């Protein structure tokens, strides 16, 4: 007798992505692929000075060009585009989408052209002549804090965007400060590590630049806006508010999005201008960012200076930590700019039991592109500073870097663990992850290998770093947008499933992972499930994809919505099968009474009945569709350990990454293949920061790394094969036990590589090297050591 094949359980399996067929055939639709009849193109004239007063804008030639629809100066735009809102509670200077009288960074928009095609629009923008009265450029962070060489925003003396926020042990909710504990910790110290460390400025560099198509339909009084964004619902909220429209009158769509990395969370001036001009002119408007523009006009990441002091006993026990953080936020506050350094503060406790911690955060304006979230957003910075200090402590005490950590780890039985920074770590076993990494790296043999190489005169070094990060962002008290996620699940009349998620992906593979979850929940084939996202006209509510929250928050919302529908479907099935709903089983495409699969109905039959319910079971409405909001009570705290080996060429100073071993614990995993991809990508960006990436400005405030020729995006040849593994410590914060994994790779890799470089160069007496590991910098250390 033929048996029906049983559907496999999909959650936890390495399932090929359902997104891929369109992407590998060039059939996906990114924003630049959208064309609408009558659409015109937008181009921005950008400032070529870092700081200056606009004295004259001559648009005559541009305006007269064949194919030019309209030209606007910043002042003209300001008449219908109000200053841009931000999403943090700090006071903030006015920020116009297009500068009205003063430019504050090179690349700031000063005028706008609408034209027939993008070539004409660019020609016309180039033909606009702007005269400036130049002002001194504020470039150096610490000099900026003294108000020198000038003050950028008049109401922000000494360029202080956020003057000083204290946190940690002895700091009250009212910011009152009691130094007793921290003073005692340092007074009792047998060793104190003190180091100034710079976590340099980075360009997020999604390979798809930003872009927007805005289509206001005057007849309907409604706006549709497509944008390469991580969060269409936030875009809708902001576009509506800025254009005097209701949120019901704006439909925001994130089509296929070519990477975000935090830089596509922000809602940008270009989006506001495109929307407002579409409304003004009554035509569809498209703007696509050039890469050269992206370097100056898309937010940067990191750029935070730390003065770190770590107090310890000679046996490696940490007694106290002082962290003075000064962030260079660039010229303006964007949506989340001011909040990013506070995440560094929040995570200052790292993986350790530290009796006393004092952190202060100061944020400073400079004449540079504004910063905002970049993969990891505040947490890699914290990890970097503390792990560097721990590494220096190990070196000072001649201890193995793993042993110093072991001595101070928060223990598994101490969770939930409330840190002095206000975080409550959900669950963890830091030692287990580190031990697995040590085992996989063959740490003892690796050390012998390093020593043998060093004995031969090679500059080989090992580095280790552990991390804990804060993910699954919510609850609403921690996010101005709301800290929940939304999902809707509908069983269609034919038994197929449509589901929506507010977690709008841009490479994370939610169509696959969320499909796996629903297929298992309902016992149906994956092919029968469609996950819809990215369109506020289809997805009722949502927050978006950032802070490694899709799975932990969005996935849970999906799970809850599915559960509601399933409960109702069980009631219909119970009526149909004349059984109790508690005994109904969903399996293998069938719905049946426990123990009697043969007498059940197909999933589609039950669905059909729910839509034509004759008779309608008492107390039930027809149909199978429901939704859920999920707001977690707490964040999740994934963790892990990364180990690296690098070699530095004694003659040229060029570093080569020889080995990278990563153990990451993201709780329960839905699709390990996709998780590995996420970690690989994070590692690549973390390694990129350690080794080759840096945005550099000259003293005039000109970015001198404004193209891929000068800003080094890692290539395939920059990496060895990464060696991944995981431990699984589920979180109690959500029913899936999933913690989130999107940013993990950027956390441990960066400090472990710098540690390896320091180790490689230890014979020269070096204890810390600021990133990036430019060969010239390393060569000088080698030369200095020789002389």
């Amino acid at each position: 007798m033929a048996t029906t094949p049983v559907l496999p359980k999909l959650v936890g399996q390495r399932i090929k992505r359902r997104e891929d067929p369109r992407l590998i055939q060039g059939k996906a639709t990114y924003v630049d692929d959208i064309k609408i009849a009558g659409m015109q193109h937008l181009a921005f004239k950008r400032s070529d000075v870092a700081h200056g007063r606009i004295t004259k804008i001559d648009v005559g030639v541009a305006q007269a060009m064949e194919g030019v629809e309209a030209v606007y100066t910043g002042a003209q735009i300001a008449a219908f585009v109000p200053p841009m809102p931000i999403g943090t509670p700090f006071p903030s200077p006015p920020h116009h989408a297009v500068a009205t009288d003063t430019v504050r960074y090179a690349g700031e928009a000063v005028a706008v052209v609408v034209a027939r095609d993008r070539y004409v629009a660019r020609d016309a923008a180039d033909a606009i002549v702007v005269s400036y009265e130049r002002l001194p450029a504020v470039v150096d962070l610490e000099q900026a804090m003294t108000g020198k060489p000038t003050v950028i925003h008049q109401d922000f003396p000494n360029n202080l965007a956020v003057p000083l926020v204290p946190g940690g042990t002895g700091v009250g909710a009212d910011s009152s400060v009691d130094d007793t504990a921290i003073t005692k910790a340092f007074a009792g110290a047998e060793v104190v590590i003190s180091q100034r460390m710079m976590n340099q400025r980075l360009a997020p560099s999604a390979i798809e630049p930003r872009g927007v198509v805005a289509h206001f339909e005057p007849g309907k009084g409604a706006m549709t806006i497509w944008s390469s964004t991580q969060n269409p619902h936030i875009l809708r909220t902001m576009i509506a508010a800025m254009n005097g429209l209701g949120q019901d009158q704006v439909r925001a769509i994130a089509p296929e999005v070519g990477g975000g990395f935090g830089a596509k969370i922000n809602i940008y001036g270009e989006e506001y201008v495109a929307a407002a001009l579409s409304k003004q002119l009554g035509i569809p408007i498209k703007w696509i960012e050039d890469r050269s523009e992206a370097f100056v006009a898309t937010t940067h990441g990191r750029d935070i200076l730390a003065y770190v002091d770590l107090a310890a006993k000679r046996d490696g026990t940490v007694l106290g930590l002082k962290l003075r953080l000064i962030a260079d936020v660039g010229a303006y506050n964007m949506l989340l700019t001011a909040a990013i350094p506070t995440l560094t503060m929040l995570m200052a406790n790292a993986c350790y039991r530290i009796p006393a911690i004092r952190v202060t955060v100061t944020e400073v304006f400079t004449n540079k592109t504004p910063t905002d979230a970049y993969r990891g957003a505040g947490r890699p910075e914290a990890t970097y500073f503390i792990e560097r200090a721990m590494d220096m402590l190990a070196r000072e005490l001649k201890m193995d870097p793993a042993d110093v950590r072991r001595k101070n780890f928060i223990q598994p039985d101490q969770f939930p663990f409330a840190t002095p920074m206000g975080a409550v770590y959900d669950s963890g076993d830091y030692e287990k992850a580190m031990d697995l990494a040590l085992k996989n790296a063959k740490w003892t043999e690796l050390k012998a290998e390093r020593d043998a190489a060093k004995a031969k005169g090679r500059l080989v070094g090992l580095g280790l770093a552990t991390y804990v990060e804060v993910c699954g962002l919510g609850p609403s008290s921690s996010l101005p947008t709301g800290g929940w996620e939304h999902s809707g699940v509908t069983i269609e009349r034919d038994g197929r499933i449509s589901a929506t998620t507010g977690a709008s992906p841009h490479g994370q593979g939610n169509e696959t992972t969320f499909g796996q979850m629903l297929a298992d929940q309902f016992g149906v084939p994956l092919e029968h499930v469609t996950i819809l996202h990215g369109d506020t006209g289809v997805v009722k509510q949502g927050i978006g994809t950032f802070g490694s929250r899709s799975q932990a928050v969005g996935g849970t919302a999906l799970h809850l919505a599915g559960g509601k529908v399933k409960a109702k479907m069980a009631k219909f099935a119970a009526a149909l099968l004349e059984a109790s709903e508690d005994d109904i089983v969903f399996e293998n495409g069938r719905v049946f009474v426990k123990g009697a699969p043969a007498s059940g109905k197909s999933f589609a039959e039950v669905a059909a009945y729910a839509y034509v319910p004759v008779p309608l079971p008492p107390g039930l409405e027809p149909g199978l569709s429901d939704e859920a909001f999920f707001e977690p009570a707490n964040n999740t705290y994934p963790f892990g350990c990364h180990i690296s080996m690098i070699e530095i060429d004694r003659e040229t100073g060029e570093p080569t990454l020889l080995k990278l071993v990563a153990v990451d614990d993201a709780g329960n995993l839905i699709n390990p293949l996709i998780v590995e991809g996420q970690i690989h990508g994070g590692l690549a960006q973390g390694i990129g920061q350690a080794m080759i990436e840096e945005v550099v400005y000259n003293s005039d405030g000109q970015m001198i790394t404004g193209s891929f020729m000068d800003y080094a995006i890692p290539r395939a040849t920059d990496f060895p094969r990464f060696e991944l593994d995981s431990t699984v410590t589920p979180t109690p914060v959500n029913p899936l036990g999933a913690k989130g994994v999107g940013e993990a790779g950027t956390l441990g890799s960066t400090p472990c590589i710098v540690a390896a470089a320091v180790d490689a160069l230890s014979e020269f007496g070096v204890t810390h090297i600021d990133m990036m590991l430019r060969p010239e910098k390393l060569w000088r250390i080698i030369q200095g050591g020789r002389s």
Partner: protein
Amino acid sequence: MAQVSITVNGKVRKADVEPRLLLAHFLREELLLTGTHIGCDTSQCGACTVLVDGRSAKSCTIFAVQADGSTITTIEGLARDGQLHALQQGFWEEHGLQCGYCTPGMIMSAVNLLNDNPAPTEQQIREGISGNFCRCTGYQHIVNAVQNAAGKR
């Protein structure tokens, strides 16, 4: 305006173009073959890679008029008779893509690589795709994808 005649994915396409029109824009805007992407303006990223007379080329670095008379294959022309190309299959099986933006260019570069060297080592694969940036994957699964495709030939 200049007249060009270019064979794209097996079809002869004639058009009047501005001499300064980039091949990438010709493919995307005139022929609506939007699978070829643009990721930079300095010929670094490789998102725009296509095959010109069988060799991989960055289509943002060539004017449409320079491609006059040539034969071009874009990502849309890679699958034959509804059968995915071995590299498309490999990228799918090995999770060689995330956001997918670099993918068409990456695949076209890899086609060229495997044409030149049907059994590349890992290092040769990494070098072969080093003119293509991917910001999402860290390249490891892309290397696996190319190995997967090479193994099937």
